[in-house]
């Protein structure tokens, strides 16, 4: 056994802790990124790329597959061929592995996978933790071993890998997504020798002996018939019967080596407990902590932690329970709608029954069992909730099934929870930090918790809560440390130390509410010391006084700028934390921060180290204690979260979520089926831009390029008659509209000051310069604060100006921007390269759009609550949007098309049948309407409205009633399938290919960032040669898959490749042509992205370079051209111009390859150059007119006049 000083204690998160073991015990690792497990695969990949060996001295081979299904298949093959293999996954990804899991288990294969347990998408997607996914696998034949903490994730990983080799039963080792996977804790690390001692070489040899090899050929994967399948299925039973014993033995061996004992079921609590909770996962730690406290309070309670859930050992379960137990609350972190109870509950009931039936029960009376659900989707599970469950067991008639942690006011299933039950001991120091995503707060806190962990004997815990928005996001760091093990698997509510790193949050969130009485508040405030108090909202001031908080203030931005750190305040704030909190002696703390800085930045250069050192040294001279004025609360009252004119739902539900109080919403407040109102993003005034665009109307040429490129629909153009200006606020700017066709009208370009993210793309694309001061354009950025109120009023007025009649506008780049965007203020990254395409789509045809959206960035900024960016026009029409899954999006969209077509056909049929009562000519007009233009659609809508009136007069004819339901489908609907390259090129490609090949009238928009953006930059098959990405750290060596060419090969699919900021007119045309094409269409859209690594305000420049260099050729392939004797393919950009190098070197993803290995970069960039040249040559050849074809640029009008 180790003596304590031999132990290597390290602060890390469970993903790293588990991966560290898995990597060292594997030969083949096949993965696919999915939250929250992605980091495990990334760690494995990183270690292998650093040539870190496994315990046998070999570097594990890590391969990223095209889906979890692919990863499972690859693993299955590797195992069958005798390798030790592993994988990491979660949620829907785990479900995709299930078919192979049955096979792997059925073949009794030694294998261990690691799962960060996560909710499954049902009424909504949730990236957060519960046991829905692992519970969906309990029938596969996998052993299931659960870890409740970071240390256990490390230890159970080892136990599972060891046990599977002996038992031949494959193992799923799992722990709670986020709560455990992303928690940083100080743990004892297993050395390679520990792992060697745990892994039985005989087990490894036996696994290898079972390998499929032509040297000892056998056959597996037969098909069996009714005569033998059943018996063969039962033949493996002995292995399952032996498995729990093997795990137990393995745990004992582990304890002997490490001194950390574990058991299959671990009981903690009163030896004569009457009430016991059965639970697994991180909640078991909270229950453990609570039980300790309740026992001290004199209660006879206990908790049984389930570790080996499958195979479920009834004997050991019963033996682990105290004989005194009278009642049991079984806690499940999953939901099985319609079941008698959740899985663990049913298992416990069955186990008790079996024990009694077998006569082996030790209980005087069969205990009563109730089942509760808790913590779905990472909902908080606190000691008060544990206590509530125990209290329920004390009731005369406890609820047999309950929920805890929410207020179920509908089916009344929830338990009351006391807010006052706070059991955190005084010796645990608690600190909460509020930061902005980009300000480095989380990074600094991760660093701090490591410093405290490594420099003191304290146990530590760090947990980080992030925003669902990608721009202007808030982060909340929860840090605990203390002398005893920290079992608090829940957020801090009463902190000794609260820091607010961004002053504007004081208005938005109840930050002071986190502080305990007498605690400390550290406030970063951009004011002079004596002005700070007055800037605090009145409610905040009151709380500070009531709670007797000590308040420290620093202008961290100034402190950071003084030492050349720009806007990065993390080091300054970290230093203040150590200085004020007194966690470590000040000098020691400062020395340690500096050491950490050197470690972090040594590779990045001494200058960064020097500046950070200066920031540390300078911080203390800037921080001051604030004298709390005697007169207390003098500030302004807090503004409402959303404006008072917002709809009730937004005020009652959305606003609660926005204020961080969504967990208080009762069940009745929420839609029953996940249906959510559109257009709620406009009510959240985020005010995240430091600078916003200001319009100079005298310079403006009214090209609308700024509005076109704006990723957030925060700069808009309108044309309107002068009389609309009546009642305009003072200073509302407008000018004469300059287009000849709408002479006499007025034009305004208006900014939404509180919704703008300040990305600056609008300024970058503005072509109009001041002749005597070219630096000044027709729009320029200026500080938001002084403009906020005035422009907000102007924007409000602007919105109320009636929209222009679409029929009067020519639909081109300029015209498209006079249409209302029906996608606004999404939470996409500031400067996002995807959203301008979606916004444009909604402007062109938003009123008739159905969107099937693949999971990814676009589903997150498109549909992640609290707010919804898709919205409706003044007629109430707008995009109907939905996300099914990641892998099935093309199929999902096809389904929508089929339904819409069926409805339309049905309506046309009914209309045909109703010809006699209706006017024949009128029916003919509807049936034969030309709906290929806006005006055609508008005319058809008028006809349908008239039809409705006529139908109403038909007095209840059943056919008329049916038609009334379906009449709207007589108006054409455009079905668009939207997703990123991860979907289109990888996981969804099979379906996409099938749907495109089907000939159905669906339009596909691929927002191509060339990398898995949403999960953090893993390579996809769209990643280009020479770019570094996760799983291609050395730079991808194979070329980007040519999705467009593959689609063109069918010959009947409209295909276009576009780049909006390189040639906006081309993007508009492609979208129109795709929409009008009577069949499948594919648009591949160049989308700049933060994963490319440069200032996104330069995105438009990169678009231009991408196209000019041949990196991103523009083309349109329109099968309709064939009918006119033309080549369907038109190449819309020129030959590569030798600027490929320039394009590449501008982006970190290429530059990091150059910096790491210049020779490899040279080789790859030469390969890229050749590929670009070859591709262009191929396209040019394909675009050449063949005999009998003419080459004109004209696009024939759509052939199908009437769409059904």
């Amino acid at each position: 056994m180790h003596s304590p000083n031999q132990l290597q204690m390290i602060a890390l998160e469970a993903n790293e802790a588990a991966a560290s073991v898995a990597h060292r015990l594997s030969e083949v690792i096949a993965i696919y990124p999915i939250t929250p497990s992605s980091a495990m695969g990334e760690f494995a990949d990183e270690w292998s790329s650093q040539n870190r060996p496994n315990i046998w001295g070999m570097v594990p081979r890590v391969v990223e597959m095209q889906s979890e299904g692919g990863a499972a298949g690859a693993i299955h093959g590797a195992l069958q061929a005798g390798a030790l293999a592993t994988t990491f996954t979660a949620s829907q990804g785990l479900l995709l592995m299930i078919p192979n899991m049955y096979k792997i288990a059925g073949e009794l294969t030694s294998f261990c996978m690691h799962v960060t347990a996560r909710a499954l998408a049902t009424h909504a997607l949730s990236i957060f933790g519960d046991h829905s996914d692992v519970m969906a696998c309990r029938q596969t034949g996998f052993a299931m071993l659960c870890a409740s903490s970071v240390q256990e994730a490390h230890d159970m990983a080892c136990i599972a890998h060891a046990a599977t080799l002996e038992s031949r039963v494959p193992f799923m080792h799992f722990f709670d997504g986020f709560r455990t996977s992303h928690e940083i804790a100080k743990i004892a690390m297993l050395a390679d020798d520990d792992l060697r001692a745990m892994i039985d070489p005989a087990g490894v040899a036996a696994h290898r002996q079972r390998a499929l090899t032509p040297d000892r050929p056998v056959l597996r994967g037969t098909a069996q018939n009714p005569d033998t399948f059943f018996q063969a299925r039962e033949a493996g039973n002995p292995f399952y019967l032996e498995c729990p014993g093997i795990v137990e033995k393995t745990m004992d061996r582990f304890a002997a080596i490490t001194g950390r004992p574990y058991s299959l079921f671990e009981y903690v609590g009163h030896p004569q407990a009457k009430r016991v909770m059965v639970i697994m996962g991180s909640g078991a730690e909270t229950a453990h902590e609570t039980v300790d406290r309740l026992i001290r309070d004199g209660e006879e309670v206990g908790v049984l932690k389930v570790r080996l859930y499958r195979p479920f050992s009834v004997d050991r379960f019963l033996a682990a329970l105290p004989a005194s137990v009278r009642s049991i609350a079984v806690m499940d972190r999953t939901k099985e709608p319609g079941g008698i109870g959740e899985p663990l509950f049913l298992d416990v009931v069955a186990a008790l029954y079996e024990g009694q039936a077998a006569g082996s029960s030790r209980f005087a009376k069969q205990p009563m069992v109730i089942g509760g659900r808790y913590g779905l989707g990472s909902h908080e599970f606190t000691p008060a909730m544990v206590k509530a469950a125990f209290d329920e067991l004390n009731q005369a008639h406890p609820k047999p099934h309950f929920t805890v942690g929410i207020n179920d006011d509908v089916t009344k299933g929830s338990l009351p929870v006391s807010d006052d039950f706070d059991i955190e001991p005084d010796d645990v120091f608690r600190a909460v930090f509020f930061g902005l995503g980009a300000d480095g707060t989380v990074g600094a806190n991760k660093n701090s918790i490591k410093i405290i962990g490594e420099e003191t004997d304290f146990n530590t815990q760090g947990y980080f809560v992030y925003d669902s928005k990608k721009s202007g996001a808030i982060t909340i760091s929860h840090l605990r440390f203390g002398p005893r093990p920290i079992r608090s698997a829940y957020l801090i509510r009463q902190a000794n130390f609260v820091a607010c790193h961004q002053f504007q949050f004081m208005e938005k969130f109840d930050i002071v509410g986190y502080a305990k009485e007498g605690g400390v508040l550290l406030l970063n405030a951009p004011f002079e010391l004596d002005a700070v108090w007055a800037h605090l909202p009145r409610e905040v001031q009151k709380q500070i006084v009531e709670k007797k908080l000590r308040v420290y203030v620093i202008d961290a931005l100034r402190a950071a700028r003084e030492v050349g750190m720009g806007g990065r305040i993390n080091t300054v704030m970290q230093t203040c934390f150590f200085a004020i909190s007194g966690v470590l002696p000040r000098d020691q703390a400062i020395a340690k921060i500096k050491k950490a800085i050197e470690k972090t930045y040594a590779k990045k250069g001494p200058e960064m180290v020097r500046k950070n050192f200066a920031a540390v040294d300078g911080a203390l001279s800037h921080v001051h204690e604030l004298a709390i004025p005697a007169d207390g609360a003098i500030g302004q009252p807090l503004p409402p979260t959303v404006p008072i004119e917002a709809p009730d739902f937004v005020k009652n539900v959305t606003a609660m979520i926005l204020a961080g109080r969504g967990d208080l919403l009762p069940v009745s407040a929420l839609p029953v089926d996940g249906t959510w109102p559109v257009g709620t993003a406009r009510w959240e005034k985020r005010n995240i831009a430091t600078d916003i665009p200001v319009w100079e109307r005298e310079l403006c040429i009214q090209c609308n390029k700024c509005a076109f490129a704006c990723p957030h629909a925060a700069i808009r153009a309108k044309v309107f008659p002068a009389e609309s200006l009546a009642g305009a606020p003072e200073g509302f700017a407008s000018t004469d509209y300059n287009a000849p066709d709408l002479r006499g009208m007025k034009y305004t370009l208006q900014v939404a000051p509180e919704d703008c993210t300040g990305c600056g793309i609008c300024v970058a694309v503005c072509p109009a310069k001041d002749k005597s001061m070219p630096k000044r354009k027709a729009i320029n950025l200026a500080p938001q604060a002084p403009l906020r109120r005035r422009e907000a009023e102007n924007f409000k007025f602007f919105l109320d100006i009636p929209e222009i009649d679409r029929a009067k506008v020519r639909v081109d780049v300029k015209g498209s921007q006079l249409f209302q965007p029906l996608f606004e203020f999404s939470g996409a990254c500031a400067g996002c390269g995807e959203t301008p395409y979606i916004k444009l789509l909604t402007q062109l045809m938003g009123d008739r759009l159905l969107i099937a959206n693949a999971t990814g960035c676009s589903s997150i900024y498109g549909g992640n609550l609290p707010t919804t960016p898709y919205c409706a026009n003044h007629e109430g029409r707008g995009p109907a949007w939905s996300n099914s899954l990641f892998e099935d999006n093309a199929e999902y969209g096809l389904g929508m098309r089929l339904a819409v077509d069926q409805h339309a056909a049905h309506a046309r049929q009914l209309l045909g049948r109703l010809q006699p009562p209706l006017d024949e000519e009128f029916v003919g007009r509807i049936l034969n309407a030309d709906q290929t233009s806006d005006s055609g659609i508008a005319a058809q809508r008028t006809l349908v409205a008239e039809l409705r009136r006529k139908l109403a007069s038909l007095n209840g004819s059943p056919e008329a009633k049916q038609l009334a339901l379906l009449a709207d489908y007589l108006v054409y609907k455009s079905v668009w399938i939207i997703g990123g390259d991860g979907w289109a090129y990888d996981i969804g490609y099979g379906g996409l290919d099938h749907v495109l090949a089907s000939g159905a009238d669906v339009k596909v928009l691929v927002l191509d960032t060339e990398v898995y953006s949403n999960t953090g930059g893993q390579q996809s098959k769209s990643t280009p040669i020479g770019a570094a990405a996760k799983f291609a750290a050395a730079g991808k060596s194979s070329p980007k898959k040519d999705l467009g060419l593959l689609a063109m090969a069918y010959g009947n699919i409209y295909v276009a490749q576009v780049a909006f900021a390189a040639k906006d007119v081309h993007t508009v045309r492609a979208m129109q042509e795709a929409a009008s094409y009577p069949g499948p269409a594919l648009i591949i859209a160049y989308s700049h992205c933060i994963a490319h690594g440069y200032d996104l305000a330069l995105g438009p420049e990169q678009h231009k370079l991408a196209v000019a260099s041949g990196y991103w050729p523009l083309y349109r392939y329109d099968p309709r051209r064939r009918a006119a004797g033309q080549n369907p393919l038109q190449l819309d950009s020129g030959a590569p111009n030798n600027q490929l190098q320039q394009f590449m070197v501008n982006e970190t993803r290429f530059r990091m390859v150059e910096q790491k290995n210049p020779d490899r970069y040279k080789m790859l960039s030469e390969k890229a150059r050749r590929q670009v040249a070859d591709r262009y040559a191929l396209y040019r050849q394909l675009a050449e007119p063949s005999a009998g074809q003419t080459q004109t640029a004209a696009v024939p009008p759509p052939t199908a006049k009437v769409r059904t």
Partner: protein
Amino acid sequence: MNLTTTYLGMELAHPLMVGASPLADDLDTARRLEDAGASAIVMRSLFEEQIEGEHDANVEHFEMFADSFPEALSFFPAVSEFAMSPDAYLEQIRRLKGAVHVPVIASLNGLRISGWLRYAELIEQAGADALELNVYHVATEARETMYSIEQQIREVARNVREAVKLPLAVKLSPFFTSLPHVAMELRTTGIDGLVLFNRFYQPDIDLDDVSVVPRLQLSDSSELLLRLRWLAILSGRCTASLAVSGGVHTAADAIKAIMAGAHAVQVVSALLIHGPGRLKVLLDGLKAWLEEHEYESIRQMQGCLSLAHCPDPGAFERGNYMRVLNSWNGRVHHATSD
């Protein structure tokens, strides 16, 4: 015939070397330059702004979006594996030293006293044979005085001198009120030589875009005259080694520079235009000329036409100016001929 020369205390096979340029970025090119006969290779400049700015930019691009969105706590492969560009520069010194046998001279470009100066030491540790310190500066502020600028140059030189033992040259611009004074003061800091001169990459204006654009124009032989003049003035008066940089395109150019006092002749534009092999053409030309004119060694002609030895020193001074003016026959060219 003895072609050797001493530059910054280093014995070189002959004066023709590759000046600071991207030519040494690539090992193959460096080898070809050595094969063509280059006596030393100066690497491209590592800029103060690069050291400080690229760090900031890289760190920013790596860290800007880190830890802010729960599904993606980072967007790039782990950064610890990647050397940032100044480290790549140091790595390139090591690689060049492994690839060629001639001296490798590193180049640092900057004028502020700050963290980037530490790179002088790192360059020395990386194995460079000498260091060229380029103090390129354009004064744009009226409050900057010639004193303050000159003092700053000296401070930078002194700092680097104290930090490293490497042979150290300072590369200057031609625009000083009194270049001999600047040279003398610099020499007191302990530097070993001067490189005359750095070339200003002067920005141009793009009329289509109404914007200022960088424009890199390669030198031609006409730029040599300015250098000849200052070489001749400094040679013999200043004890530092002198190198010429800018305008050497032919063997004749090189010979003139040596006669004016250069110990080393740096070539860049000619090599960028004609390729590494051009160096051999120049070297052969130099040898041929020496042979033809029966010079025994380079040293024999070094500085023979400097101000100290020149039979007609006035030509380099004001008299030359008068002569040039007088040679103008008062004719006015009309821009009609082409």
